């Protein structure tokens, strides 16, 4: 952790101006080529054929059903992973037990697994030729190439997001406040709702935002389990792929622009939360103005 010294009074001008300018130039050129130009290109391509084509593309019945399914899978996956994240962070940060670091590694596991493999394992488990396939067919339950499979794949790829945000935060906060509440006679639930939750709300919100973003944008895992049935099992990213492969570029980018707007909104919320929690923690230090 940093000491009480503010970073901005450090040796900020320690390199010669020429080198500083050069480094800023290199950084901005790199980011322009790889970030800013693509960002502008999405909206340019989406609106290239005019507003009429744009609106037609995003109000197309297949696009609307894809948006509905994308929202549905996020609405299912995010609360489940929120519950998991809070429970996991509570167990990991409030108690000392054996195997804790193994547990933390296992929570991270979905980050290290290719999304395609995430889809594959559910096909192996629930698919027609999978381990539970015959039993499911008998009871007329369809998971793969249907909505439940899409939800499951989405849950898998977003498992770590909220837990990852909460664990370091709750570790830093320690257990004293909860212990005090309990000693004063509060019940476990009251302690959680009145002490822990207000303390972690910004971290939780940030985790939920990241989790939602990934849930709505997931492509590989969902693509494997979806079966690409238009109007039924197509999420918005899969719909974009189909439009693109049919050379309907304007329509593909119109749908892509919706997801890009979502991404920008997420970056906005993230920046807001970071500024807000930063100013709460260190009230007199005014952001990064010198």
């Amino acid at each position, binding site marked *: 952790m940093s000491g009480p010294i503010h970073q901005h*009074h450090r040796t900020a001008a320690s390199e010669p101006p020429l080198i500083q300018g050069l*480094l800023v130039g290199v950084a901005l050129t790199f980011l322009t080529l790889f970030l800013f130009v693509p960002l502008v290109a999405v909206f340019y391509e989406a609106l290239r054929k005019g507003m009429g084509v744009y609106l037609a593309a995003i109000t197309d019945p297949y696009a609307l059903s894809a948006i509905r399914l994308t929202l549905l899978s996020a609405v299912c996956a995010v609360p489940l992973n929120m519950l998991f994240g809070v429970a996991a962070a509570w167990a990991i940060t409030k108690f000392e037990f054996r195997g804790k670091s193994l547990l933390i590694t296992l929570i991270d596991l979905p980050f290290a697994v290719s999304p395609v*493999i995430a889809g594959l394992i559910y096909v192996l488990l629930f698919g027609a030729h999978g381990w539970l396939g015959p039993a499911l067919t008998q009871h007329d339950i369809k998971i793969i190439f249907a909505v439940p499979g899409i939800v499951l794949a989405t849950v898998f790829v977003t*498992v770590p997001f909220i837990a990852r945000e909460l664990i370091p935060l709750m570790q830093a906060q320690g257990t004293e406040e909860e212990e005090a509440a309990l000693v004063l006679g509060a019940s476990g639930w009251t302690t959680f709702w009145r002490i822990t939750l207000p303390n972690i709300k910004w971290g939780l919100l940030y985790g939920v935002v990241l989790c939602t973003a990934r849930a709505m944008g997931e492509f590989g895992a969902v693509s494997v389990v979806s079966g690409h049935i238009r109007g039924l099992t197509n999420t918005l990213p899969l719909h974009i792929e189909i439009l693109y492969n049919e050379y309907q570029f304007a329509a593909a980018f119109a749908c892509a622009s919706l997801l890009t707007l979502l991404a920008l909104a997420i970056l906005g919320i993230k920046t807001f939360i970071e500024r807000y929690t930063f100013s709460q923690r260190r009230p007199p230090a005014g952001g990064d103005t010198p």
Partner: protein
Amino acid sequence: MMPPQLRQPSVLPGFGLTLGFTVAYLCLIVLIPLAMAFLEAFQLGWREFWSVVSAPRVMASYRLTFGAALLAAAINTGFGLIVAWVLVRYHFPGKRLVDALVDLPFALPTAVAGITLTTLYAGNGWLGQFLKPLGIKIAFTPTGIIVALVFISLPFVVRTVQPVLEDLEAEVEEAAASLGADRWQIFQRVIFPAIRPALLTGFTLAFARAIGEYGSVIFIAGNLPMVSEITPLLIVSKLEQYDYKGAAAVSVVMLILSFILLLLINLLQRWNRSRQA
């Protein structure tokens, strides 16, 4: 020393409930399904497993996937360090906006990144049209894969190095300067050793993320077997031909390599923390 009991006593409630739920959830959603890949692959028997995972087309896909991911992570390590440095130490107009936008690849769905980069780097695209006269083709070649992987793994190095640079004590640099070191010596001897663990962590995270990437790459790659077919795509095409065991076998190889990387990341982060403490 670890105490003889499984957990240390605490007045806080809910240990059994939360740990039980956590473990049960992980088993149901992550571990049991992942075990399926291993079970399915091992049905092949050792010799057939080996012949599947070492077939020439599969070997070519490993080389491409790991090579492109390694290059992309290396590019991002170099430029990521410069971006982090500039964001922490210098002032320039639009800095806050740039700082916020660095995370764009985390928030932008990979399919959107894929179609956008392909359109930009195609022969008639905004960027491709300048490269075409120079004889450089990016879209639908292995180079395109590197471009896509650079995009999706861009934030990792920046975001791991940035906090470490912010926390560096100015006094150490001032002391080095007062002892007669020039800027380059200070960077080499004082700053670089401090940020090296973070740089390595960022590199490994970017590498691990790039290996598994699918959504952005399939649009830009061209997907020719032996030339521009990445391993995740090979798994999908095996699956589409109902070769479940083959798909599982290749997945097992990727999973094992990813687990090793994950272990490495954890060790690096522990090393990072112990150095900062």
